[in-house]
């Protein structure tokens, strides 16, 4: 749609864009490092005898959630403008799924 296309102005402050990109790059590298680190921790948590499954399973799930957030916000650019609706649908879907599972765990029990 005409009103959605970005106007590509060649004179748009190149320096500003460059700085922005560099910043983004930094975020990506930091979060990428963190993600690898978290993965290592996850492997360690499973491998380490001292942790019971009651600790390591929720722990890994928590790490997974963190990773999903990194993935969405730093690699799939959800932090940028114009992603409000995808975010709304994502959280809407997550909420519906959560309430459903929550109902099963608390009152229904199948």
């Amino acid at each position, binding site marked *: 749609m005409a009103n959605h296309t970005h106007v590509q102005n060649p004179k748009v402050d190149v320096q500003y864009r460059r700085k922005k990109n560099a910043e983004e790059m930094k975020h990506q590298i930091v979060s990428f490092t963190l993600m690898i680190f978290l993965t290592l921790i996850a492997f360690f948590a499973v491998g380490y005898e001292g942790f019971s499954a009651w600790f390591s399973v929720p722990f890994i799930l928590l790490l997974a959630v963190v990773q999903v957030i990194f993935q969405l916000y730093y690699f799939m650019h959800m932090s940028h403008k114009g992603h409000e609706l995808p975010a709304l649908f994502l959280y*809407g879907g997550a909420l*519906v799924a959560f309430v459903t599972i929550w109902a099963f765990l608390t*009152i229904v029990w*199948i």
Partner: protein
Amino acid sequence: MSTLARKKGVGAVIWDYLTTVDHKKIAILYLIAGGFFFLLGGLEAMIIRIQLAVPNNDFISAGFYNEVLTMHGTTMIFLAAMPLVFAMMNAVVPIQIGARDVAFPFLNALGFWLFFFGGVFLNLSWFLGGAPDAGWTSYASLSLASPTHGIDFYVLGLQISGFGTLIGGINFLVTIINMRAPGMTYMRMPMFTWATFVTSALILFAFPPLTVGLIFMMMDRLFGGNFFDPALGGNTIIWEHLFWIFGHPEVYILVLPAFGIFSEIFATFSRKRLFGYSSMVFATVLIGFLGFMVWAHHMFTVGMGPIANAIFAVATMAIAVPTGIKIFNWLFTMWGGSIRFTTPMIYAVAFIPSFVIGGVTGVMNATAAADYQYHDSYFVVAHFHYVIVGGVVFALLAGAHYWWPKMFGKMLDEKLGKVTFWLFFIGFHLTFFIQHFLGLMGMPRRVFTFLPGQGFETGNMISTVGAFFMAAGTVVLLANVVITTVKGKRVGNDPWEDGRTLEWAVSSPAPEYNFAQTPLVRGLDAYWIEKMEGKKGLTPAEPLGDIHMPNPSILPFVISLGLFVAAFGFLFHQDYAWGTPVGVVGLLITLGAMFFRSIIDDHGFHIHKEEVMEAEKKGAGA
């Protein structure tokens, strides 16, 4: 390719429709296919009612009754009501938001063909060893024990048509988010567009649970799984949950567009803007959200326990609040308006008391303790027909009359339209009102006959007579369609003269490109605003120029055909050696077509400015 219909041979027309990606033609395809299945489901309803006209009847056997009953419900919900809703959405929504097309024209066509082949596949069960016979809900404890292939047809057929629905829903979401004309903010969207938006979101979230359930069922029935068989460690109740997590939102998927259609009709024929527009939007969204929190009200008697029953009962009753908001808004829209009782409008007026009756019995059903009495009796049958026929079918009939000129360029005859209405309206209440009492007197649902001397005779006879009234109404409607097609006069842009929304600003039917110039929307009821300022057309938002259009393609048809073939193969893979190879070939057809879709670089084509100008001059002129 200009929009002006050149005389084409039959073959060319058929090829045109097989390959079309134009939302207006896809709407017609949905209308024809959905209409056909509606007649089929209606025929099945007549068979049921004839069987139940008198006690101890042997018009059909018990086993065949189960098949007819199951196919009636399944056909009506998945193959008649859903596609007819999609017909309305395709015909109207893109034009209402001032768009030239939907966001994914190819997917739109794919959605239709998947639905179509799924429906045909399901119905071929009649000829291939017997139809499904475990009710439209197909509860696992019944359906796993069903000896014929009927249930397998149900599972595979619904799986295929369900993909189509999901694709259609996603397409409308993206279309409404991305393709609105300049100035068409969310809070300026017509109510039917809002309803389509929320409905599509419900489809997006509700169909995956059904897909999962059907896959489990397919595994159990065809590939040696045991998700639902307690003897093998499965759990039969899981199916019920999955089915209703889908099933309850499904009823809102059907009824929200119905609300949307009526909102348009009330405003148009009261010659007033919709009362309480923003509360209508709010109510629609809230109903959509709450619709996901109440599925277990279908399972009060399963034994979930008092806490679960109580919570789900209260959650269900909460939905009555936004629904009530809507009812009052419609009443206030009419209040003080200068009302015209056209055919669509009398459906709309009749819808209010009919739907309220269905809503009241809904709250009665939601009262968990009382539901032990109503459950699986004719009371429930009466309830859901009041909401489905009194709500959805009335809306589809009203919408068909209302938008017929926009789809086909000719007005349906008003006199015959009113005859249809009265036959259908009287027949509907005759058929279903008495069933409340049959249910309270203890007549069970889904049983092929009843015994004399239990007080059920008169009620059932009345009910059957009513069904014949509805059948007569349908015949008059068909006659009306034929007469209009043959003899009807061409109409202009705004045949009801009181059109408020953008679809009434373009010619009837709309040109292939909908708008020669994308319009600038200056408020709610955009066309009405222009009319009130004495303007003929819309304010354009862009200069006249070449218009880019997508190319037609046969691939959606081929992709769907492949799944159809594959379903046959896998359905028979335990009986015949050819089963598995045929299944694999079908999948290869589908994957091959998808492969071609990916590698062919299809840039579409342009309708040139001169052609547009010429078409606009010859057409009614937008």
